[in-house]
């Protein structure tokens, strides 16, 4: 008999690790952004799984995470468009003016 909470928590940890590895392995800024969204969703899944035994507050927190993720996506994509206008590329290795 599979416990739903256990499966969801393990999947949350797995998705978070995959998202973190994706941030490291991709160079395209938009895809790094997508990996960050995946990590946010992994945390959401974990919060919902915990909220079954820990109270409904976990789901309220997921609601706020979704709102902040929407705001973050809007601003982040605007920054990517702004960078693209300037450099004509979205490769994070080559947009390195602030690196040194």
């Amino acid at each position, binding site marked *: *008999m*599979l*416990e*739903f*909470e*256990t499966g*969801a*928590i*393990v*999947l949350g*940890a797995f*998705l*978070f*690790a*995959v*998202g*973190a*590895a*994706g941030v*490291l*392995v*991709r*160079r*395209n800024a*938009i895809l790094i*952004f*997508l*990996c960050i*969204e*995946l990590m946010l*969703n992994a945390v*959401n*899944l974990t919060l*919902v*799984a915990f909220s*079954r035994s820990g109270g*409904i*507050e976990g*789901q*309220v927190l*997921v*609601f*706020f995470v*979704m*709102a*902040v*993720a*929407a*705001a*973050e*996506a*809007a*601003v982040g*994509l*605007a920054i*990517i*468009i702004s960078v*693209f*206008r300037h450099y004509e590329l*979205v490769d994070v290795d080559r947009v390195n003016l602030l690196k040194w």
Partner: protein
Amino acid sequence: MIAEFFFLLFLVMAASGAVMMVASRNPVASLMFLVLTLFAIAGLFVLLDAHFLAAVQVIVYAGAIMVLFLFVIMLLNLGHEQASDLRGLFGRGTALILGAALFAALGTALRAGGWIAAGAPRVEDAAAADPRGAVQVIADPLFRDYMVPFEVTSLLLLVAVVGAIVLARRRAP
């Protein structure tokens, strides 16, 4: 029994979609795999008795945010197959090792917390047995205890809208 089947199905869908998203060369294909993962997570939300969040997940995440990403990929003309943006062999190996280490660390922490033990705390279906509807269950604490954070969120969204317009605007010549 049928719930277990769908739980396993969504589990495999979410995990394989995430892996394919990271491994796929085409940005649009990556995004579609992420949408698959988000839908699977919405299904898991339903099975975990978070019905309202499942609806919000589909509408806001898989609907609005992913369409926004798709618009930007199309706008920047990145949709076609091109030189892969994946890092070289060294970068991939490092990412694989660090990702596996992170997964192992999270698993160790959850096991230490007693969450993956065989006798994990068994929960009766509290939300399913609640006489209030799926929306009221989450609306009650949201508008009683978390009223101020909720209002601050609206301010945050306003700032994000204004900021996005300012950042992405074409500078006047």
